[in-house]
């Protein structure tokens, strides 16, 4: 049976090589978590911000740091605390007595890869400082707008909201994250491997040896390729239908926004490219639907009381919608 009838229209060789290198860099240190690594790479290629959620000690911060390290770009880290002020994130104007004028000192948010650790430990006042910079890639202070350099990506970690000392992030901010990646506990075999690596001091050595495998220019090129990938009109309608269904479901109190539809299409293109295709399939859309939508919708209180999660809800919605074929 002849399999190869069609030649690729888009050259994805460089992109796939870059993906393989990042995957290997992260995979050498993070045991298991293949899905998390894939979504981290997809988010990077789709030009989105990512929120990593998990209980303490499941390598959320390590994953984010490793992804940042594998890119030759500036990296800054902000530890969110309950007393953090917006000016601690964005920067502030300081009076310079020599020039008798106010001078703007840029905050840690100015960089390429920003790791915000424990993002949900800061109150809403500080969270709102991130709205403009996350969506519009710019900071406006004292009437002056400062544009962020490309690539600009926020990698945030958070504990589940039921945990002590955490706040629920505002919906407006959650909507600005392309993916919420839930990091689960490792399996028994994976945990044994983590302990063995630690015992043999492999982890420390490998962490020191992590080198950047992707330049800023390469990232820009990959993103340009991904934006141009093909999406069949019926698949666009399929993605829209999934998002639309979240707004009309009786169990959903707050449905997903059009920004979520855009996020599904953009990230499914990244997934398709990572699998060596220059077009999107329904599987790509289904793969990204949960990490794109789960943090954007809110269930009705009765459904929450029943123990239903937003991820379960998304799966139920997908199972109701016919695949365009």
């Amino acid at each position: 049976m002849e399999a190869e009838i069609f030649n690729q229209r888009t050259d994805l060789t460089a992109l796939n090589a870059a993906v393989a290198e990042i995957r290997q860099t992260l995979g050498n240190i993070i045991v298991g978590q293949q899905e998390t690594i894939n979504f981290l790479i997809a988010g990077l290629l789709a030009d989105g911000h990512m929120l990593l959620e998990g209980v303490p000690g499941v390598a959320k911060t390590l994953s984010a740091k490793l992804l940042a390290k594998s890119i030759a770009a500036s990296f800054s880290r902000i530890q969110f605390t309950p007393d953090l002020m917006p000016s601690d994130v964005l920067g502030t104007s300081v009076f310079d007595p020599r020039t008798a004028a106010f001078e703007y000192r840029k905050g840690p948010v100015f960089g390429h890869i920003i790791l915000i650790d424990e993002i949900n430990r800061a109150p809403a006042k500080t969270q709102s400082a991130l709205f403009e910079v996350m969506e519009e890639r710019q900071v406006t202070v004292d009437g002056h707008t400062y544009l962020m350099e490309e690539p600009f990506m926020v990698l945030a970690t958070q504990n589940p909201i039921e945990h002590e000392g955490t706040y629920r992030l505002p919906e407006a901010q959650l909507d600005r994250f392309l993916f919420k990646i839930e990091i689960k506990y490792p399996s028994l075999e994976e945990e044994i491997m983590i302990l063995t690596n630690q015992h043999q001091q492999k982890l420390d050595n490998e962490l020191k040896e992590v080198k950047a495998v992707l330049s800023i220019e390469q990232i820009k090129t990959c993103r340009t390729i991904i934006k141009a990938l093909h999406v069949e009109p019926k698949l666009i309608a399929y993605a829209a239908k999934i998002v639309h269904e979240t707004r009309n479901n009786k169990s959903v109190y707050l449905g997903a926004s059009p920004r979520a539809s855009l996020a599904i299409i953009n990230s499914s293109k990244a997934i398709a490219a990572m699998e060596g295709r220059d077009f999107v399939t329904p599987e790509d859309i289904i793969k990204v639907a949960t990490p794109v939508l789960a943090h954007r919708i809110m269930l009705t209180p009765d459904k929450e009381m029943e123990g239903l999660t937003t991820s379960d809800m998304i799966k139920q919605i997908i199972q109701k919608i016919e695949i365009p074929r």
Partner: protein
Amino acid sequence: MNRIFAFIIFAMLTMTCMSGTVFSASVPEKVLKYDTGKVSVRKFDAEQLKNYSTERAFIYQDNLPESESWWSRSWSRFWRWFREGLQSAFKQKYSGTILQYIVIGLFVGIVIFAIFKIIGLDFKLFSGKSAPVAVPYSEAAENIHEINFNDELSTAILAGNYRLAVRLCYLSTLKRLSDKNMISWQPEKTNQAYLMEITDVEKRKSFQTLTQQFEYIWYGEFIIDQERFNLVKKNFDVFNGREL
């Protein structure tokens, strides 16, 4: 000590009573005065009174109850019948007025409901949720068990629509797999889900190739000419003839 306290209380009470008597005794007696003013009798103009009496406001006969119309009589009869029916049903007295209001309220509610339904308004106002809206999505209601694949395929090939022809070949293969219980057909399942349902490794591999080709043509919109279509069709024919 207690005696002294009791004496003081007694003395205070006595003084209070006495002071009341003294004050009441000092109020002067009221003297009624007669009105000695001159009374002048005013006379009304008889002509003017006559004119007034002809005005509509002074004709009280107009306010007399009119004889009951047919509608009022029927309405009263209905209420009497309704009350009596309830009384006989429940063996107790009901207030006719309250019942009237309840029935009128129900009637108004039904009318409003009917109007909302007729003009197609959704009930977001009451439920907080809008009624589901159908989105333009043409995939629904296509059942592979009801498609005449031979006719449809011939038409597509004659029209030179090879993309549609490949789609029909793929759907036809899914139908055959479903008929042979190798997959469980459900429109919501993905191609990969069907692939995983095929337990035979060789058949799965062959079907994977067909799926890949279908996806390139259907979702990837790769241009397909007759020559390429013949190659793809051959693959489908081999799978359907030999494997199934």
